[in-house]
């Protein structure tokens, strides 16, 4: 016999969980008490939302569901933004929340919030556990739902009395959920249709999204692109599927994408979308050729045809479907198209900048930074102008690029970097944010110190909410409202207060030495780059 709380911890152990991110409170105390007797490492974050983001970064690098924990009421509601962020990017999370006792549910008692109700629109599924006997089955199902099919966050809400009930622990080997059977393999007939469409096409184009990483299809997709002669564009979530410098990689598409990618999109006669939602910032029917044939490969049937009419729908896991396709070895007649594309001005692999310049060119800095990082390092971008500079400037070889793509959640980068580092301690992890987003997450510097986590932080400081300022100058007659961040603290001194070494640079002339020093520093270090408030993102996509 054991308590419900012990059963929850035991379930985590059975699922191979070695690290969890959380913030305790009264109603989750039995769980924390049980956790103290376990070998599972608990990372105490400084706000619940950051626990969710850390679990997100952990999940994306480890390939396993990230686990985050919060108490009832405000603890749970603080988690909501992290759940929504994970939901939009299909990141597997298991979120555990404490809840008020079952006999008080619905009476608006202290720290009661209907969290399963609140989280319903952006969780893949949620459980409100009313009897401890259900816990092992619920935990098994939560991990299964979070990590299979189209991954996503799953919430397990457990009233405190349920955590204290005694049960016999029997952990199921398999989750059996009769209403849940995600399609894995592609339909053979559809796979054949796709192969023959590739063979017939002259200007094929692969558009790859974050689903490629979720299904571990990177290698398969590279082989498909190379074997069939298909150039590649990626969404922001798909950055890094192919190395930035790969001859078939045309870069990121969309509003903030690069010209070569968007032009190829407009000219292509066969667009193969793989693991991408076709979000409004990426693809719209106006950005495509009128006679284009659209193939959409996705594990979630509901994504196919939702935002873009599809000629050949193919439901399945990207890795499995590309395996099936590879067996048919399709080959496009794309020689001319490839020659044409390489003739076009490609995204430059290294931005030229004048080392003597006395300002900072954000994109040059990002290129310098990412070129100086390890080949297999992890680059975590925040949201705002820094995200656009990062997405367009980052040079990826074998590394990963993590960001909040769908939700665009500010304050994502540092906690996500913490999670990524814990998932892969041997890898270099760099978080890049702006001064606005830094101030949404700077409390996590304490988490870094407390748990001895080694990440590098770059703050692009323009003393503004730059992206909003840019929108205001373009669309609101340059009337700048609520974008000046005057009153902000000295970021280097904030870092110093936590014992984190920090330096500030003002020009590209200082950049090389500073980036080197940052990356070679022993533990966590911070580099603050003072950026001209008038710098724009320089969108090419609309041209």
């Amino acid at each position, binding site marked *: 016999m054991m308590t419900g709380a012990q059963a929850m911890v035991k379930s985590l152990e059975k699922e191979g969980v070695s690290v969890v991110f959380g913030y305790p409170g009264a109603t989750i105390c039995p769980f924390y008490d049980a956790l103290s007797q376990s070998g599972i490492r608990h990372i105490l974050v400084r706000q619940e939302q950051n626990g969710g983001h850390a679990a997100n970064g952990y999940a994306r690098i480890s390939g396993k569901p990230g686990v985050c924990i919060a108490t009832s009421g405000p603890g749970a509601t603080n988690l909501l933004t992290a759940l929504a962020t994970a939901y939009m990017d299909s990141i597997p999370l298991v979120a555990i929340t404490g809840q008020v006792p079952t006999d008080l549910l619905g009476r608006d008692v202290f720290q009661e919030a209907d969290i*399963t*109700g609140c989280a*319903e*629109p952006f969780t*893949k*599924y949620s459980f*409100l556990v009313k009897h401890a006997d259900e816990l092992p089955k619920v935990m098994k199902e939560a991990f299964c*739902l979070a990590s299979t099919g189209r991954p996503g966050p799953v919430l397990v809400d457990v009233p405190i009395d349920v955590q204290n009930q005694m049960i016999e622990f029997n952990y199921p080997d398999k989750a059996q*959920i*009769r*209403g*849940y*059977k995600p399609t894995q393999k592609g339909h053979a007939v559809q796979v054949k249709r796709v192969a023959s469409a590739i063979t017939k096409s002259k200007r094929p184009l692969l558009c790859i999204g974050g689903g490629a990483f979720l299904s571990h299809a990177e290698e398969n997709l590279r082989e498909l692109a190379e074997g069939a002669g298909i150039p590649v564009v990626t969404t922001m979530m798909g950055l890094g599927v192919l190395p930035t410098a790969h001859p078939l990689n045309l870069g990121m598409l969309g509003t903030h994408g690069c010209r070569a990618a968007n032009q190829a999109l407009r000219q292509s006669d066969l667009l193969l979308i793989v693991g991408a939602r076709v979000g409004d910032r990426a693809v719209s029917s106006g950005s495509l050729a009128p006679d284009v044939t659209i193939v959409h490969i996705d594990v*979630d*049937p*509901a994504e196919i*045809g*939702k935002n873009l009419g599809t000629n050949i729908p193919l439901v399945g896991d990207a890795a499995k479907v590309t395996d099936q396709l590879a067996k048919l070895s399709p080959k496009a007649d794309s020689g001319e198209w490839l020659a044409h594309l390489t003739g076009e001005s490609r995204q430059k692999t290294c931005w030229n900048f004048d080392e003597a310049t006395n300002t900072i060119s954000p994109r040059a800095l990002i290129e310098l930074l990412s070129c100086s990082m390890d080949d297999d390092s992890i680059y975590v971008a925040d949201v705002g102008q820094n995200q656009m500079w990062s997405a367009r400037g980052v040079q990826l070889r074998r590394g990963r690029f993590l960001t909040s793509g769908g939700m665009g959640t500010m304050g994502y980068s540092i906690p996500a970097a913490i999670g990524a580092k814990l998932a892969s301690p041997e890898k270099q992890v760099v978080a890049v944010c702006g001064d606005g987003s830094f101030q949404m997450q700077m409390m996590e510097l304490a988490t870094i110190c407390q748990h001895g986590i080694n990440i590098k932080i770059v703050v692009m400081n323009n003393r503004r909410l730059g992206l909003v300022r840019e929108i205001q100058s373009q669309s609101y007659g340059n009337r700048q409202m609520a974008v000046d961040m005057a009153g902000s603290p000295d970021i280097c001194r904030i870092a110093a207060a936590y014992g984190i070494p920090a330096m500030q640079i003002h020009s590209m002339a200082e950049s090389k030495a500073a980036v080197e020093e940052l990356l070679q520093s022993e533990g966590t270090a911070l580099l603050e780059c003072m950026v001209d408030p008038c710098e724009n993102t320089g969108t090419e996509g609309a041209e």
Partner: protein
Amino acid sequence: MKHIISVLVENKAGVLSRISGLFARRGYNIDSLAVGVTEDKTISRMTIVVEGDDYIIEQVEKQLNKQVDVLKVKKLNSEESTRRELILIKVGVTAAQRGEVIDIVKVMGAKVVDISHTTLSVELCDRPERVDLMTELLNQYKVQEIVRTGTVALEKGPGTIGYGSKK
């Protein structure tokens, strides 16, 4: 256009809220929704009448299928299914009008289920169009209350919704 969608769902707490929440946040218009337990006590059947074009209906079906608690979704064709709706109407009548209302009730195959000095309560279980007709006919009197169940529907012939094969 109106479409009838039959949905088999897990018979447990929170499912109705998940389904209605899905319709609300994705902007699908529910005309009516009726729900009740099936021959299998662990399964409930929802009959949802939705207004929408082909694109909307395809999205509704896909989003419903995506729900973990949904076991089967089937679009029913109006012509090929038996559709029923129950209505209860309380009509205020004078002594002179009582006979007229009872005549309408007889012609429509409805029933008077309650009577008072000033009212008649009428029950009709019929196709939704007939239920509409009934309300229209009684609207010329002083209708005091109407309650309708929403449409339920069953395929004609031997075919069933069959939930063994959720797609």
